[in-house]
């Protein structure tokens, strides 16, 4: 039981890392990793939103959209298949959840809002968040807790990636990079090398 959750958790952090294995959330990963402080803020915001939206979308998908999901309303609805709506539904949930989370944080923890607040609107268009929900749809989880573990794990994986690249970029500002490679170019190549490193986790059998 617990073993299965632990496996899923480790797998979603290292083996199926959002950034290094699927390149999800690349845009904000490249744009916000110039300083470590911003990187940590963005990473935390992603963990937060992924942990909320993946299980929420799981519930919506499982009880409203999937083939035969509406059977609980009445037998005449049992044959409806609304899964073509999943994309619009997911993005609506994500956009409204981000707004809601932003308001709640602003109300209850102004200091947290100070460090996370500016990143939250960016998250609605971070593909890691939508990607998490779309992978959840493919993966066929058996329950909402599995979806939550998956969301949390993917968030941590993304956090690790952005913190690592932000730290490297802070150091690399002092080194002598060829002028045309400065900034974006070298960041791409370093991310590639890091992804090569993360590929070594693929051999792990869980």
């Amino acid at each position, binding site marked *: 039981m617990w073993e299965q959750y632990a496996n899923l958790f480790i797998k979603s952090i290292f083996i199926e890392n959002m950034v290094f294995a699927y390149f999800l959330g690349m845009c904000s990963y490249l744009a916000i990793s110039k300083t470590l402080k911003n990187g940590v803020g963005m990473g935390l915001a992603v963990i937060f939103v992924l942990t909320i939206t993946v299980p929420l979308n799981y519930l919506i998908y499982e009880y409203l959209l999937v083939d035969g999901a509406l059977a609980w309303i009445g037998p005449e609805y049992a044959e409806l298949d609304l899964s*073509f709506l999943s994309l619009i539904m997911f*993005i609506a949930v994500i956009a409204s959840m981000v707004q809601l989370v932003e308001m709640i944080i602003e109300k209850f923890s102004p200091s947290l809002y100070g460090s996370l607040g500016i990143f939250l609107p960016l998250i609605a268009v971070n593909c890691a968040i939508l990607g998490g929900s779309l992978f959840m749809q*493919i993966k066929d989880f058996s329950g909402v807790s599995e979806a939550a573990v998956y969301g949390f794990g993917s968030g941590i994986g993304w956090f690790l990636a952005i913190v690592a690249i932000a730290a490297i970029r802070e150091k690399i500002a002092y080194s002598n990079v060829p002028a045309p490679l400065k900034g974006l170019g070298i960041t791409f*190549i370093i991310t*590639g090398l890091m992804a090569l490193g993360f590929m070594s986790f693929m051999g792990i059998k869980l």
Partner: protein
Amino acid sequence: MKDKPKNNKPIFLFIGKDKEPLFSKKNKKLLSDPLDDNNPITVQVLGICSALAITVQLEPAIVMTMSVIFVMACSNVIISVLRNLIPNRIRIIVFLVVISSLVALVDQFLKAYAYEVSKELSIFIGLIVTNCIIMGRLEAFALGNGIWKSFLDGIGNAFAYGIILILVAFFRELLGSGNLMGVQVIPDFIYEMGYENNGLMLLSPMALITVGIIIWIQRSRNKKLIEQG
């Protein structure tokens, strides 16, 4: 007498605007600028996710390019038509609704007519919704410009995005499996001389490094793109 130039000016401007040919210099620049100086991927850093993940082979990259061109041109036009009606506070949600309906259309179309490719692209068609190129151009361009210009801007940017996508996919498929579009292009006798496909190119990290090298080449040719500091 004094009133004459005052009255003439706006009318003159209006006619001038109306008479602007469909492919004036300015409009052509909208199409050509994204190709090099303002490339969405290598300069504006938008839409990287999909650019990297689906470039193992040429075919999905081409399908992806066509889908993005369609979604982007349509959404740019729609937002440009609605631009005076959208309240500023909820514009992001309006964008998302427009884009995701268009993407759902493309997704269903591919599932019906090109099932194999749509399987291969899996979630990445859905991820066009959060492709920041589209969002970025809607926000930066379509919200403040006319219909025809927005249409051109959409086509130009989507096309420039596609060029990079196809370029990366071309090298990865050629060097990684010796094929192009699934057809073997490296002749057998070269393999017999001891040439081996570079399996590393098929792995995801090499997509990042290929894009890095493309950026390097582009910036050493076009010096004004080099980042300072």
